[in-house]
């Protein structure tokens, strides 16, 4: 009954060309290893979705995997634009549906609750409502007009967490952001984790389990699988790597060369991580340890 697979198998079996893919992580636990694997397997025509997306979206766009993005925000947080995304949207090679972060969370939440829409008091003014064709619904008790936020159920969710057991029970510590809404909204869930633990460790702390095994399609152990984002208790955020992406991604040709060498040219994420200065990683690990003494 083990759900443990190599990340290569997990992506090969669960992410198809043209799939709508939710990518988890909000600040922490952004599944970069899985994104690299998607690039390596040259998936095409993906529809990416989530609330606020960071440079993991930019990477997938730059690598030519993406046809459309459905999101509330796509950028390099605190630094500015996602340059590959900006170029692709301006060139018309990637379509974008502009929602808001709350709207995206509600779209997933509707799918989690199994209903086709949820009412909300957003998307009632400005240019977003017309751009996404949001419809109205009237409260049958109060007569109040609300926006009907349509459910969104992705084909597959890709998330990263601290740990899971072989059965696929996933435990996430620290900020979940919109990860659990997006995952539970999706038909299939792939989880990468820092460590695989015994079932007894899960059942000794069941209020730490955030996704039950029966909802998980595959679990892959990938140490540093969310680098350069961070994982509470494991490693800090490599802000400098985000700044490096800001520089690198301004030049389309240089970015293409980097992807060829550092993503497609690597056997797997361990190979990519092995090439990073060990002192740099050690410092991030020390930083995480300092937060929770």
């Amino acid at each position, binding site marked *: 009954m083990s759900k443990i697979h190599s990340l290569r198998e997990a992506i090969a079996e669960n992410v198809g060309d043209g799939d709508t893919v939710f990518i988890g992580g909000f600040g922490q636990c952004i599944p970069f290893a899985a994104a690299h694997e998607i690039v390596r397997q040259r998936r095409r025509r993906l529809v990416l979705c989530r609330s606020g997306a960071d440079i993991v979206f930019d990477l997938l766009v730059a690598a030519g995997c993406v046809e459309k993005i459905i999101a509330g925000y796509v950028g390099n947080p605190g630094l500015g634009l996602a340059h590959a995304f900006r170029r692709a949207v301006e*060139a018309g090679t990637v379509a974008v549906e502009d929602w808001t972060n709350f709207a995206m969370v509600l779209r997933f939440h509707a799918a989690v609750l199994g209903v086709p829409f949820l009412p909300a008091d957003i998307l009632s003014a400005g240019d*977003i409502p017309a751009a996404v064709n949001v419809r109205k619904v009237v409260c049958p008790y109060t007569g109040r007009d609300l926006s009907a936020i349509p459910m969104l159920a992705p084909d597959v969710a890709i998330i990263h967490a601290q740990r899971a057991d072989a059965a696929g029970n996933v435990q996430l510590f620290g900020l979940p952001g919109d990860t659990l809404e997006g995952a539970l909204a999706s038909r299939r869930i792939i989880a990468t984790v820092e460590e695989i633990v015994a079932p007894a460790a899960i059942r000794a702390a069941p209020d730490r389990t955030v996704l039950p095994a029966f909802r998980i399609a595959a679990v892959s152990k990938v140490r540093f699988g969310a680098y350069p984002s961070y994982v509470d208790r494991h490693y800090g955020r490599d802000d400098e790597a985000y700044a490096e992406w800001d520089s690198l991604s301004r030049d389309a040709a240089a970015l293409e060369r980097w992807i060829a060498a550092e993503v497609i040219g690597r056997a797997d994420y361990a190979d990519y991580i092995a090439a990073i200065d060990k002192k740099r990683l050690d410092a991030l690990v020390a930083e995480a340890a300092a937060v929770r003494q």
Partner: protein
Amino acid sequence: MSEQTDTVRLVALAAREIRDHEVCFVGIGVPSLAAMAAKRTHAPNAVLIYESGAIDADPPKPPLSTGSPAVVANTAMIGSCLSVFALLQQGRIDRGLLSAAQVDREGNLNSTALHRSGRPDLRLVGSGGAHDIALLAREVLIIMPQDKRRFVERVDYVTSPGTRAPRLSGRQGPTALITSHARFSFDRGELTLDAVADGVSSAEARACLTWRPPEAAPLRTLAPIDRELAAVAETLIHAWGRDIG
């Protein structure tokens, strides 16, 4: 006019808008610096909420992302995006702090796209939670650098609706806009020069606008920024270490 830099004044004047015990929904960049400055000075009980899910945060250093380790490090509670947006829609957020690429006379904000003649629009990052905050916070504080390109009569794209949008009762939309040079109100639904910073003329305050806004009469002058607040703002800006805006 004092020795304080524009960025220090921007952060400090915005911080002064935040009252103690207020529940604030805080975006990254200047809004976060202003909220942190307030919490470290006159508003120690301000409740800072970040859309990543951190509730009652007290970041040890300015976070680069709304979900950064600094946001979480000293927070009282980690919820989810859903739980904090729920608080927002419930009406429990006193003040939303927003910035944007463009603002217009009615307080509409644009963070989605800029028109360019003869070329495709310049694509920006999109709403994030800004649209939601603009409609659902009880009051919205807009914080903008003194930059002529960012003040327009009509924004290219209305990401976050301004004063004219219909809202639930108790949700006022933008009530103030702070620059390094002045405080603007939206008392009649329109950007109105309410007060100038100490040592700033009304012409200087209006220099970021291409139009002549209404002015409060008499036009107030804001109290000078005290040394403590200026020092805190400067420390935060230094730790932020990146462009403001």
